[in-house]
C-alpha cells in the first residue's frame, strides 16, 4: 500500500512538472509547480479511492441516514463555529451557534437531527483560518494540502488548530481513552467519505466547467475564503484604489473597459493577495499594498 502510494506520488509529481513551466504565473501562487504536483496526486487519489468509495456510500445508504451523518458532523462543527464566531467578535452569531448545539445535541438526538434550522437558527461555518483572516492575517501563498486540497499558508495554520480543537476528538478522549485512536480514525474516515459524497455533484460540474481545473479551483478558493471572511458582505474596494486599479489596467493595455462597473472588481481577492507579490506591479498586489487595512475594517 505504502509503496503504491509512493509510486502514485512520484507519477503525479512528474505529471505536475510536465504541465508547468509555461504561461502566466499567479502572484498568489509562488509554489505553483509543487502545488500542481500535489493537486495531480489528489486527483489521482480521488479518482482511484475516495470518489469510488463515496459513490458506493451514497448508493448504499438511504438519503435520510446520510443527512443524519451530515447533521451529526455539522453539530460538532457548530460548536467550533460558535467558538470562532466568539473569537471574531460576532456575539449574536456565536449565541445562535451555541443555541444550535444545545438544541441539536438534546432534541436532535446527539446531532443526527437538525431541529435548530427549522427553528430559525441558521447554520454557519467558521474555522480558525477565517478567524485569523478577520484578525487581519493575510492569506499568504496558495498551498495544496495532500488529500485535503486547496488552502493557503494562513489557512493551513488554521487547519492545524481546527484539528486540534475538534470537539469530537476531545469527547472521544474523555469517553473512551483506551480506544480513542481507533475511534478517531473511524470518525475521520466516515466524515471524509460523507463529505465527499455530498460533493459528488459539485465536482462533476467542476470537471465540466473548467478548462484548467487547477487554476479554476485556485481562483474559486481565494474568492470563497474572501467571501467567508466577510460573511458574504459584498466587498467593494474603496473608490481611490479602484481608480488606481483602472489606471493600472489602462496604462498596461489601453483598456477602456466600456461600462464596466466597480462591482466587477469586487470579486478580486484584494485582501488575500500576497504580501510577497507587492511591488511586482500587478494590479492585485498594488491594491493589496495600498488598502489592506481599509479592506479589513469593512
Amino acid at each position, binding site marked *: 500500500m505504502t509503496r503504491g502510494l509512493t509510486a502514485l506520488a512520484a507519477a503525479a509529481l512528474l505529471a505536475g512538472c510536465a504541465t508547468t513551466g509555461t504561461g502566466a504565473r499567479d502572484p498568489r501562487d509562488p509554489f505553483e509547480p509543487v502545488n500542481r504536483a500535489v493537486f495531480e496526486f489528489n486527483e489521482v487519489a480521488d479518482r482511484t479511492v475516495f470518489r469510488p468509495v463515496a459513490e458506493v456510500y451514497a448508493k448504499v445508504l438511504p438519503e435520510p441516514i446520510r443527512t443524519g451523518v451530515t447533521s451529526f458532523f455539522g453539530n460538532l462543527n457548530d460548536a467550533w463555529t460558535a467558538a470562532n464566531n466568539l473569537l471574531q467578535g460576532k456575539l449574536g452569531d456565536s449565541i445562535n451557534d451555541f443555541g444550535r448545539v444545545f438544541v441539536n445535541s438534546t432534541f436532535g438526538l446527539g446531532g443526527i437531527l437538525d431541529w435548530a434550522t427549522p427553528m430559525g437558527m441558521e*447554520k454557519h461555518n467558521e474555522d480558525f483560518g477565517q478567524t485569523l483572516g478577520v484578525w487581519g492575517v493575510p492569506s499568504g501563498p496558495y498551498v495544496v494540502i495532500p488529500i485535503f486540497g486547496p488552502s493557503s499558508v494562513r489557512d493551513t495554520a488554521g487547519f492545524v488548530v481546527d484539528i486540534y480543537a475538534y470537539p469530537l476528538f476531545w469527547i472521544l478522549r474523555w469517553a473512551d481513552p483506551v480506544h480513542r485512536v481507533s475511534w478517531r480514525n473511524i470518525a475521520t474516515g466516515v466524515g471524509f467519505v460523507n463529505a465527499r459524497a455530498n460533493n459528488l455533484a459539485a465536482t462533476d460540474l467542476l470537471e465540466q466547467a473548467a478548462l484548467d481545473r487547477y487554476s479554476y479551483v485556485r*481562483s474559486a478558493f481565494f474568492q470563497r475564503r474572501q*467571501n467567508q471572511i466577510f460573511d458574504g458582505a459584498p466587498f467593494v474596494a474603496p473608490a481611490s484604489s479602484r481608480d488606481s486599479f483602472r489606471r493600472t489596467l489602462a496604462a498596461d493595455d489601453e*483598456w477602456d473597459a466600456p461600462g464596466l462597473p466597480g462591482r*466587477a472588481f469586487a470579486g478580486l481577492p484584494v485582501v488575500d493577495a500576497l504580501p510577497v507579490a507587492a511591488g511586482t506591479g500587478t494590479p492585485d498586489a498594488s491594491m493589496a499594498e495600498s488598502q489592506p487595512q481599509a479592506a479589513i475594517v469593512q
Partner: protein
Amino acid sequence: MRRLLALFALLVAPLAVADITPPDVLVKTVSTEVLDIIRKDPEIQRGSTRKTMALVEAKVLPHFDFQRMTALAMGPSWRKASPEQQAQLVDQFRTLLVRTYSSALVAYRDQKLDFKPLRMQNDSEAVVKSEIVQPGQQPVPIDYSMEKSGESWKVYDVAVGGVSLVTTYRDTFNAEVKQGGVDGLIKSLSDKNRQLEASAR
C-alpha cells in the same frame, strides 16, 4: 364575451410591454418555471443533457448578456481580440456555460430555492440574491449580478457561494491568452465543448 376580452387584451397589452419586469421578479419567475419543467420532464429525469440544454437555450439564455460576460472574463485581453475572434469567444463560452448551467439545474433540481429582498445598486444595476437551502447544511447563496440594458434586465455574472463565475474563468483565460494568444483560447474552448458534446447524451 370573447370580443370583450379581446378588446381588454388590446388595451392592456401595451401597458404590460411598457412595464419592465423588475430583476428579482424576472429571476424568480424564470427559475421557478425552468425548475418546474425539469422536475416533471421524463426525458430530463432520465438524464438527457440535450433536452435540458434546449430548455435552457429557450428559457434562460435570453436573459443573459453573454457578450458582457465574455468581455469581463477576458479582462484586458478582450481588446486584443478582433471582432471575429470576439464573436467566436462569445459563442464558445456561451456553449460551455449553457452546458454547465444545464447540468447544475439537473443536479440540484430537488433543492429548495429561497429568494431574498432585492437590493438595487442604482437604477440600472442590481444584485438578485437567492439561496439553496439544504437540510443540516449552511445555505449556499446564489447571487445574480444584473444590468438593465434597454427594455430588459440581463444577467452578466452569477456567484455561487461568493465565487463569481466570471472571475473564476478570468485566471484561466488570461493564462491561455498569454500562452497561445486569443486563438489559443478559442481553440481550448472549442476543444472542451467538442469533448463534452461527444460524451453527452
